[in-house]
């Protein structure tokens, strides 16, 4: 029996669905994937995913038909995304993909595609099919939950055979695409569980539906960043206390009651990473008594303005305010060259159809700033200021009694340790940029660091 998301709720921040899905008892059918399949699927262009896309099937509980729509939508776009990933991996140097870790990831993707192919030809029109499909989604999410740490290990081992620039380029794209794939899958799973027509809903958590009125699948339409910040403050603070004996504090200024529509898991990941950096910096600089100042600034909404901007921007798509580029979502496929356009060309997907108030979160700490040498490498995957021994421990997977700050990077990235591997900032930025936001880091060497996290909300959803 697959358990409910509700059972996983924890301090107001839902933890990833996949943690509590027990292995499926029903066997999943697979079909051998041929090169022709991959080529065919990868030839299709990818359209940018918007939060509106994910919400368009309606507010849960979904009717049967709406659920089928969601399943069919997912089924329509997933196989080609997986095919693109496989192709990108195959375009890497042979010796890199031959590395057991990287090769495992490649195999995972092929496996997932093989589970989708049998159903890809059909449309989902019955409840039985839909349940089977959801099981396939769950398998997908489960299989790929440790991708990042395994890939990281793989690239570290193969670092002699591939340049940093190429690694960064590949990972930037791959991880962004991965965000999308997981999101699509997890969204469908979440919608499935929050909808009525399932006799298999055990533990009857009907009352939770009242609480979760603001949720549409994994999206919380009334997400309060201040809450997430406080939660992360707790978690990271505890680790600091464990490791360093002191716990820095946070002051929230601006408009703490701001809410936006976004994905709590993502925000939690980003903020955790940013706070880890800030907390560690202030502790090592000795300024932990001074509160870290976090400003929450909601952007004003103005529908007329947005429309006007779109008209004025004209042909220059990248100047169009709010357009999501294929780069942000990892759809460019640099390595395999299979998907050319840099800019979202699809006229059907307009991310900011209507006013989308976003929010900017500014984190100001007095941790002494970042040295100019380190600043150059800030966005590199695998760059970290932890020392060699700690890194080796993590890479070999033995991090038992190791440093405290690595134990809690669960959430969307999977349960294994990431910190110290140097993935926090670039990944955090990938999450932020996925829907058109971003992270900017400004260092005042000798004083502290200012980090600007901007997030865009989803358009009006009925």
């Amino acid at each position: 029996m697959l358990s409910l998301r509700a059972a996983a709720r924890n301090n107001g921040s839902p933890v990833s669905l996949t943690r509590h899905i027990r292995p499926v008892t029903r066997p999943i059918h697979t079909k051998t994937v041929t090169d022709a399949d991959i080529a065919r699927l990868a030839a299709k262009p990818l359209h940018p995913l918007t939060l509106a896309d994910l919400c368009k099937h309606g507010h849960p509980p979904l009717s049967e038909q709406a659920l089928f729509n969601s399943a069919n939508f997912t089924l329509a776009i997933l196989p080609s995304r997986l095919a693109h990933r496989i192709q990108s991996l195959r375009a890497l140097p042979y010796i890199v993909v031959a590395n057991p870790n990287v090769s495992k990831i490649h195999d995972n993707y092929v496996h997932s595609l093989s589970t989708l192919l049998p159903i890809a030809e059909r449309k989902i029109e019955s409840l039985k099919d839909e349940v089977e499909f959801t099981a396939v989604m769950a398998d997908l999410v489960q299989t790929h939950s440790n991708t990042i740490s395994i890939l990281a290990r793989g690239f570290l081992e193969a670092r002699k055979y591939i340049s940093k620039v190429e690694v960064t380029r590949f990972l930037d794209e791959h991880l962004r695409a991965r965000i999308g794939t997981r999101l699509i899958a997890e969204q469908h799973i979440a919608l499935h569980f929050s909808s009525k027509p399932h006799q298999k809903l055990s533990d009857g958590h009907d009352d939770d539906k009242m609480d979760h009125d603001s949720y549409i699948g994994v999206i919380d339409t009334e997400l309060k960043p201040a809450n997430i910040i406080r939660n992360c403050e707790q978690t990271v603070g505890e680790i600091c206390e464990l490791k360093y004996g002191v716990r820095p504090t946070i002051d929230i200024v601006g408009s703490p009651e701001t809410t936006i529509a976004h994905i709590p898991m993502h925000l939690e990941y980003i903020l955790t990473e940013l706070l880890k950096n800030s907390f560690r910096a202030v502790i090592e600089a000795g300024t932990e008594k001074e509160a870290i100042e976090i400003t929450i600034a909601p952007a004003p909404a103005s529908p007329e303005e947005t429309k006007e901007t779109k008209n004025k921007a004209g042909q220059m798509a990248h100047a169009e305010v709010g357009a999501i580029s294929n780069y942000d979502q990892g759809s460019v496929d640099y390595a395999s060259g299979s998907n050319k356009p840099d800019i979202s060309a699809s006229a059907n997907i307009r991310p900011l159809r209507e006013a989308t108030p976003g929010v900017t979160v500014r984190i100001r700490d007095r941790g002494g700033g970042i040295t100019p040498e380190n600043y150059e490498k800030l966005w590199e995957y695998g760059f970290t200021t932890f020392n060699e021994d700690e890194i080796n421990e993590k890479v070999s997977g033995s991090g038992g009694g190791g440093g405290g700050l690595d134990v809690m990077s669960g959430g969307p990235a999977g349960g294994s340790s990431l910190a110290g591997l140097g993935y926090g900032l670039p990944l955090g930025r990938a999450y932020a940029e996925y829907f058109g936001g971003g992270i900017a880091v400004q260092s005042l060497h000798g004083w502290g660091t200012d980090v600007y996290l901007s997030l865009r909300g989803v358009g009006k959803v009925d």
Partner: protein
Amino acid sequence: MLLCRRLPLRPLQRAFPRSQALTRPYSASTTPPWRPSVILDEWVQRESRPISLRQLTFFGRTLTEARLLSSANYVRLELPTRLAHRLRNMQTLPYAALTNEHVAHVYELYYRAFELFRKVPTVQNLDDNERLCEVLRTALTEHLTVIPRLAMGILEIQDSVSGDECDRFMTTLLRSRISRRVIAEQHLALTETFNSPWHFDGKMSSVAPEDEFVGEIFLKCNAREIVEKCAKRARELTSKAYGNKVTIPEIVLQGHLDTTFPYIPSHLEYILGELLRNSIQGVVEQSGSSQPPPIEVLICEAAQQVIFRISDRGGGIDRDILPYLWSFAKGPRRSKRLKNLGKVPRLAATMQELQLPPSIPDQTENQNEAETLGFGGSSLSSLSARRPDLRLGIGLPMSRIYAEYWAGSLEVHSLEGYGCDAFLQINRLGNKNEVLSTRAAMDGV
């Protein structure tokens, strides 16, 4: 000067014309006349030699006649070389661009200056130097109108030249202009020092221990003082512009207040003036007349750099102009900017009469009135002292050019709906060279 004779000579192009340059009427509708390109070719072949603040400082510290003459000859050759590169840039713009009256005006000014400088013979004694200085002063004054005219020209030629190319062109030209003016003004200042009654040939030049100037470079620019000075001026100007009913926000300093570093004060004052004025405007227009939130300036000192962070709660930058923040040419408010720019050349022109020698550090104290824009000969001062309600739209990109000139940087982060943070980074190591755009770099772009 064989080549000269083949050219159709105009009275202007002989020897060292002075007031003729200023009073010669310019016909606004003509495209610049054709001139043989072979002279320019010669000068374009030369590479310009970049300089650093440190070099300028050390050079000027121990002044002897020999050094002064050596400086004069450096100036004599560098200026026409750099001008030639820029002229060639302009010549390779689409023809349509040069039919624009403003662009043509600037082109003519530069060509005349090029002709002037290239004819200066080798400087062999102090009299020759004096003649050179006279030419420099004339050119510096005459070219005060360049920035506003160029800015207007750029806005007007959008149909024939793309926005990006315009931005690149403008940036290159402005950088080059800074470099030429620095070289010229520095030499003038050194001559001034050399000629002053308390200078002893060969001794370390020292005016007074606390204002250590080497030419235009202030060795001990104190961060706090300069911010306070700019803050005061910005508040006065905006107060006049907005009237009595509006409370101007306070400007509060914190951080490493005793930091000092070598810099050219007029550059820094321009940048800080622009940033502070933008912040004040933002806050005033956002909060109205009630208690405006203060603007916080943080000074942060590190081994290699000094960073100024200017934080305001002025509502941030409008979404529609955010992508064009650093552009001279693009953006949705072009026609307004063009109109306002048209009002500035008149200001720049009248202030020539109030020229003061560049080596006096305190000259800028006189510019309290927005109307009388009298002070030192840099056109920067006219731009930084004009009324704040005249939005020219070039403050930020110009400030960035100045900041990057000595290997610094300028960055702005906007918290939409809340406020803005501007980060100005100054390089303390005076040995970073000026950022030159050589011909090769331009061609590669």
